[in-house]
């Protein structure tokens, strides 16, 4: 039924990115461009203490000496860093922050996005920190969490209210000079989430950040810091969307996770930045540095990501396994369609003895997109009996897309066991027809096959997120078999 599939393809590619609306919110922004004055101004507007300004300036000076990395399997157009607005915030009225003070237009935006910021979130049991453009606009459930000693707030608040923790840990996992985009982030980051779980506490709810780029010509540079003390546990989720715009917008975030002895942090991302239109125009450049350290013995960090958005993704959530017997996991589904490009994967750095890492990466490419897995497994000399298992699968839909796998293994001792498996397959006409013959439409059939393929990863997501992610996978790929 060639015609049918063409029709579906047309319908879907013509259908709009669901989150592509622009909210009419009064903004307070700095002019375009980046220099030391802009950085001083950002710091001043945020009324930051001196140590933060120092941190920013140090990073900025380093960044100026650095060059954009070109090693990824990506075609990145020239980015004019002077043509970006580095600070934009929804205008706020004076006075204490309460619900009535939030711009109703903004609340409407969250409603459209289906983010539970009001009473319903009590039912959903998810605490949300919502960040629009550069500023955290509302963090829910702070009080409930505070009773347990959990701090969940914007990083700006943490800089003011918890300077000791911020000074101790900010930049400790991703140093200000780590890489080009991390340095840029350190210089200009305007907000982000901060999360601290005290010793022996299990967070009773999922903590969630929601990021949205709204204003035109702005970049988003959020910074997230998660600290899990001994014997603590937290599950953290992040989601993101952006309006549809013809120009590319830059998103360069940094996430740092510190897991102390016997602590466990589960970090889940459903990334749905605007991917650009079907001709590859517009979309977000998603250049993100995420890294965690299993600092204490028996600690665990688990990354799960479902990546369906962005025009270009450059992202390698990594873990340093420093504590003995520490564990790290990386579960990823990355979907690219039309002209999207993704170069994503992980780094597992084994330093401690008996450390164990698992990598499950499922790439799905459709249209004329390019999807690369890039992963490093490094076992240091002292990491006796380290183990890694990597599985990298690629699924191709159609014959104009590309899938690539770049695994790097560096094993420094003989007791390590490192296994790597990789497969590439094409979504089969036969599979689709089999489902058609049982009364299931082609669209649903593709959704079912892709979700089956990605099931191992989706199973890692918290329930509500998994359902959302499943729908997203289907939407991202609908009509891609032509």
């Amino acid at each position, binding site marked *: 039924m060639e015609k049918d599939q063409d029709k579906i393809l047309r319908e879907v590619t013509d259908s709009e990115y669901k989150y592509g609306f622009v909210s009419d919110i009064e903004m307070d922004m700095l002019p375009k461009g980046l220099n030391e004055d802009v950085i001083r101004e950002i710091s001043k507007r945020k009324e930051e203490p001196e140590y933060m300004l120092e941190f920013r300036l140090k990073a900025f000076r380093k960044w100026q000496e650095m060059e954009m990395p070109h090693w990824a399997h990506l075609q990145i157009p020239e980015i004019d860093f002077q043509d970006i607005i580095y600070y934009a915030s929804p205008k706020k009225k004076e006075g204490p922050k309460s619900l009535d003070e939030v711009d109703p237009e903004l609340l409407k935006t969250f409603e459209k996005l289906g983010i539970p910021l009001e009473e319903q979130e009590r039912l959903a049991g998810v605490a949300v920190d919502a960040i629009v453009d550069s500023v955290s606009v509302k963090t829910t459930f702070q009080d409930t969490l505070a009773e347990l000693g959990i701090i969940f707030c914007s990083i700006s608040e943490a800089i003011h209210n918890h300077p000791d923790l911020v000074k101790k840990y900010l930049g400790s996992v991703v140093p200000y000079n780590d890489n080009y985009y991390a340095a840029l982030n350190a210089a200009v980051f305007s907000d982000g989430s901060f999360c601290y779980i005290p010793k022996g506490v299990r967070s009773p709810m999922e903590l969630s950040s929601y990021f949205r780029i709204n204003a035109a010509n702005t970049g988003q540079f959020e910074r997230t810091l998660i600290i899990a003390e001994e014997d603590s546990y937290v599950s953290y989720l992040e989601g993101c969307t952006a309006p549809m715009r013809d120009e590319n917008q830059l998103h360069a975030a940094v996430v740092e996770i510190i897991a102390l002895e016997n602590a466990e942090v589960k970090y889940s991302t459903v990334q749905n930045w605007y991917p650009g239109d079907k001709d590859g125009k517009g979309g977000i450049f998603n250049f993100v540095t995420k890294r965690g350290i299993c600092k204490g013995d028996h600690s665990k960090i688990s990354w799960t990501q479902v990546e369906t958005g962005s025009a270009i993704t450059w992202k390698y959530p990594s873990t340093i396994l420093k504590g003995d017997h520490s564990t790290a996991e990386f579960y990823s589904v990355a979907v690219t369609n039309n002209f999207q490009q993704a170069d994503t994967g992980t780094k597992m750095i084994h330093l401690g003895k008996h450390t164990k890492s698992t990598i499950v990466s499922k790439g799905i490419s459709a249209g004329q997109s390019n999807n690369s897995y890039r992963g490093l497994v490094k076992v240091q000399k002292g990491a006796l009996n380290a183990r890694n298992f990597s599985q990298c699968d690629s699924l191709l839909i159609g014959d104009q897309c590309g899938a690539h796998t770049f695994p790097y293994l560096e094993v420094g001792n003989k007791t390590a066991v490192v296994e790597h498996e990789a497969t590439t397959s094409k979504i089969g006409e036969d599979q689709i027809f089999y489902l058609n013959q049982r*009364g299931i439409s082609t669209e649903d059939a593709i959704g079912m096959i892709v979700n089956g393929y990605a099931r191992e990863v989706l199973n890692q997501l918290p329930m509500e997120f998994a359902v959302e992610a499943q729908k997203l996978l289907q939407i991202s790929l609908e009509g891609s078999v032509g």
Partner: protein
Amino acid sequence: MLKIKNLHANIEGKEILKGIDLEVRPGEVHAIMGPNGSGKSTLASAIVGRDYVEITEGDILYMGESILEMPPEERALKGIFLSFQYPVEIPGVSMVNFLRAAINEQRKYRGLDPMSPSDFLKLMREKKKLVGIDSALTNRSVNEGFSGGEKKKNEIFQMAMLEPKLSILDETDSGLDIDALRVVAQGVNALKRPDSSTIVITHYQRLLNYIVPDFVHVLYKGRIIRSGGKELALELEEKGYDWLKEEYENSLNGAL
């Protein structure tokens, strides 16, 4: 139920079916036999609407309506079921999810609400018993890691779940040992209703010992060259296809 009129069909530009006429009425079992390459599977594919089969002439009427322009899923929803010769594996998709989706699509098509999970599981249990399928199989992904016999049994199980009006069994007997064959045949017979029809496509007669046809048609070089009752199958078993082929070739020569 099904009426095929002067059906001509190509695959990749080559004519495979060269004028098939066939009528299947409610309650009937038709066997389509013939040597390899005679067009049996192409005929099945044409009925269920595979896109690589290009219909160049003729028509297929199902319940009085031409289905040539109908997408395959709609044909399925209207009650046409194909038991595949080579059922595909769909990794990660559980049998339960797959069948629930299929059942609920069918219900939606008929304007019914989705089946409740408990009714669905009850139905599964019943039908499993009916076709004698191992419980464990339905806890796995669709056909994944199934043996040849298990795959074929799974097809019949799906048929039991979906209760089609017209079932086409494409070489369901191939690759089955005699015990599996018996189980499959029993399942098919148990599912027979006065208002449903079955087309059994097979190379060999042995399946027809268990599923007794009302009519047997021999397909050769894209045409039905002989039709008869169940005794025709026995005759073929005994004498092979060569005598029919010869007769057919001679008749062509005679016609010149």
